[in-house]
């Protein structure tokens, strides 16, 4: 009902106070040299506590979110995350633990982390996990450094190249580059899978690793993954699996069985941490036994039911960040997994796949799939502007907002023209999917009947279409 909100600093009134603290016995100037002290106070808003509460409450209401709207954002697994997990991670015992506390004082947390590692090992078939990476991309980077360390340990210094699929997520090549590797892109076949011939041609003594996303970013299972693994291994390279889409495999398949050497998972997707407007995440990395020793420190060790955080480990690539990792996120993932038994685990993936295929089946006559076959947890469809008065993917996305749905991921993967990537996730009902399908079909019809309306969408949101170009040309990124 409110459609815009001033910026906090515009609500600021000099001298107004929110949280007030006790006064220090002596001011900082009594202890610190004058030269070190701040001359002018930082330009932060001066607001009462109530104003702050009202400001951010009202601001929040300008958002769509999963709790209010279907959020079928492909590659993002916007599924429902049980509220109990939030409560659990916030328990004083967990939330109040200092990262430098001695192991004896944090046995509860260490036990959770250890148990989670073991559960992830069981789910993936891999030998060992680190929970340190803060997100998926950070996990990729970790995995890439593990691969580098592995080749280095074998004195194999020629392996300077990493192969990535052209359909891969942008973080894959970026992470590879960050690890000092050159990146070579391998084309996908028309059916969306990696082109084995192209791969074989690309593999060589320079290849450190092949990075593959399973299911891939077209929502398709790489049926030949075992062969890909064999080819990579035969060439002396490792196989990395980007497991950000692991929701589709939970309880169905174990990547170790595919021949995967290294993989990362996104706890904030498949394992139930709400995405928080962009994070925090957690990107645990699992490895085959031979690679365990390269995992970053700290490691969590267990002996006779007592847990220890080991800061040093011979062979380790070192530390990827400060402290143990995004423990709060890991706790939620643990809580989530303990809510499931072996049977219901499998239902996660099954229903995710069911929902994606249902949406796909109900839409494919109007929005042709990038690849016309059953999909896994998401489907990539296309608009056909040439047939529909210029209805582009962006228009569909914006117009969907008017219809009360967040938009799918658009223009990704890059290899699909006018891509619309729909991932309903397993937690949406058939009724919601039916309404979503109806909205997309209605938009298609609108494009034929009243194209202007669709091109100018959204009409009912707090703002109309925003000028992105202008924003980038004259960036205003702070109130200054």
């Amino acid at each position: 009902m409110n459609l815009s909100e001033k910026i906090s600093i515009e609500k600021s009134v000099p001298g107004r106070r929110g949280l007030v603290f006790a006064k220090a016995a002596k001011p900082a100037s009594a202890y610190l040299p004058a030269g070190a002290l701040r001359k002018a106070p930082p330009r932060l808003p001066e607001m009462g506590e109530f104003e702050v509460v009202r400001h951010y409450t009202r601001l929040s209401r300008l958002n769509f979110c999963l709790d209010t709207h279907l959020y079928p954002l492909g590659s993002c697994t916007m599924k429902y995350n049980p509220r109990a997990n939030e409560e659990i991670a916030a328990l004083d015992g967990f939330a109040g633990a200092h990262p430098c506390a001695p192991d004896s004082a944090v046995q509860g947390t260490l036990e959770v982390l250890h148990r989670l590692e073991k559960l992830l090992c069981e789910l993936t078939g891999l030998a060992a996990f680190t929970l340190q990476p803060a997100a998926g991309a950070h996990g990729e980077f970790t995995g890439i450094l593990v691969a580098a360390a592995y080749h280095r340990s074998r004195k194999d210094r020629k392996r300077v190249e990493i192969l990535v699929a052209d359909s891969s997520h942008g973080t894959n090549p970026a992470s590879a580059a960050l690890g000092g590797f050159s990146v070579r892109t391998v084309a996908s076949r028309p059916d969306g899978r990696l082109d084995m011939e192209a791969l074989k041609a690309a593999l060589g003594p320079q290849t450190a690793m092949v990075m593959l996303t399973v299911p891939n970013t077209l929502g398709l299972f790489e049926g030949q993954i075992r062969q890909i693994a064999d080819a990579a291994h035969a060439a002396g390279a490792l196989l990395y699996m980007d497991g950000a889409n692991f929701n589709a495999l939970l309880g169905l398949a174990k990547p170790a069985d595919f021949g995967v050497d290294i993989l990362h998972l996104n706890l904030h997707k498949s394992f139930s941490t709400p995405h928080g407007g962009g994070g925090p995440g957690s990107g645990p990395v699992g490895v085959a036994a031979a690679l365990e020793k390269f995992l970053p420190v700290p490691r969590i060790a267990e002996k006779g039911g007592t847990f220890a955080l080991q800061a040093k480990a011979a062979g380790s690539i070192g530390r990827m960040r400060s402290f143990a990792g995004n423990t709060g996120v890991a706790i939620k993932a643990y809580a989530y997994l303990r809510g499931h038994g072996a049977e219901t685990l499998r239902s996660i993936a099954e229903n995710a796949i069911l929902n994606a295929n249902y949406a796909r089946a109900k839409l494919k006559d109007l929005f042709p799939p990038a690849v016309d076959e059953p999909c896994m947890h998401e489907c990539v469809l296309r608009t056909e502007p040439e047939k529909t008065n210029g209805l582009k993917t962006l228009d569909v996305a914006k117009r969907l907002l008017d219809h009360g749905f967040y938009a799918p991921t658009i223009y990704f993967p890059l290899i699909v023209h006018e891509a619309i990537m729909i991932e309903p996730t397993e937690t949406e009902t058939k009724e919601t999917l039916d309404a979503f399908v109806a909205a997309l079909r209605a938009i298609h019809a609108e494009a034929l009947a009243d194209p202007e309306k669709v091109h100018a969408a959204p009409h009912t949101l707090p703002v109309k279409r925003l000028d992105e170009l202008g924003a980038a040309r004259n960036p205003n990124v702070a109130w200054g």
Partner: protein
Amino acid sequence: MTYSPHTSNDRAEMLRAIGVSSMDELLAQIPAELRAGGYDWPAALPEPERMAHARALAAKNRALACFAGAGAYDHHVPAAVKALVQRGEFLTAYTPYQAEASQGTLQAIYEFQSSVCALYGMDASNASLYDGATALAEAATAAARITGRKKILLPESLHPEWRDTLKTYFGARGEPVLETIPCPSGRLEPAEVERRLDDTVAAVVVATPNFFGLLEDGAGIAERAHAKGALLIAAADPVSLGVLEAPGKWGADIAVGEGQGLGNALNYGGPYLGLFACQKAHMRHIPGRICGMTTDAEGKRGFVLTLQAREQHIRRERAASNICSNEALCALAATIHLALLGPEGLKEVAELCVDKAHRLAEKACAVPGFRLRFEGPFFHEFVLECPVPAERVRNALLKEGLLAGVPLGRFDKALKNSLLVCATETRTDGEIDRYAAALGRVSK
């Protein structure tokens, strides 16, 4: 438990619509030989049992009065912050790709960036990075790109885990090259920095307050760095900036920090909050998401993610960074926290920290055998030199419900008897007295 809402009826109808006869037919996409045989998995715990299990685990952690810092600080997290970040509209939104349906998150990011800039005296910032250590790594990368140079000078007075993170980040690639500057007095000697500065140096890093809690001569070092064409990267605790001069004012080109202390719990090390800010000139080298102000088709103000040409989803292997998800909710907590405190509240907290830490230091050093390891002004943390190994002191105080600090021996054997001790505004006078009294019993 199942969070999949389908009834068997739903499932049957949907399979029919898809045109397959069974779930198994749909799953045929995964070759049979790649399907899992089974899982060794514990029994599902319904919510009541799960809560009880979690409470039992949480209870295995000990509640202690926290005098440990070392990059993670026990500040008060305001109740309003906790309540607001749990609103579904913030908690369950994604990265704001569809700006029109995400103005709440976007404006909050803009406010976050602005607040970070205000604290650090900078012009531009981003939507957050993973933590302080990785923020510094990103700053080092940016500095190398901006200057076209390869060397980063890192002080020994920097958090050792941050140094280790940079070593990991750049070790495999081999660049930027890291050179550590020793700090025997606990602080950087400007002269020592000058000695190492040459035209291969992309940036000098200065942490102030540094790992030992001490304030560095940032201005002196910045001047020397700039004189040699190098950038100055400042690392600073944001709470300290309630009383300490903004890095941008004393010459920092890029500033980073660990933002956990702004409204985020200790959480055993994460999720934390990487802060990154810089002068305007370097804006296009900032890693990660940036929110910018713009207008809509009718001229109304709005916010979008901007400058995306730096990012991995556009640039792939040539991106400024590989970061994608960041620590948005922690950044939101920091934004709300700073709005609640305002400049005055932040100053109050900072002054309480200074005051309590100094009173603690005084009381601790009055105990025979204990003294400050380093000289010099400090913020809310100091190195207490003990008459016995610091681990012993720590263990003794643990029995009294006190987390005495962080023994430094594990970072540097020479610091075996050194305990890094911190007092924030949450430590009471009573706890400070108990601490000193407990030290008295150790020394005997």
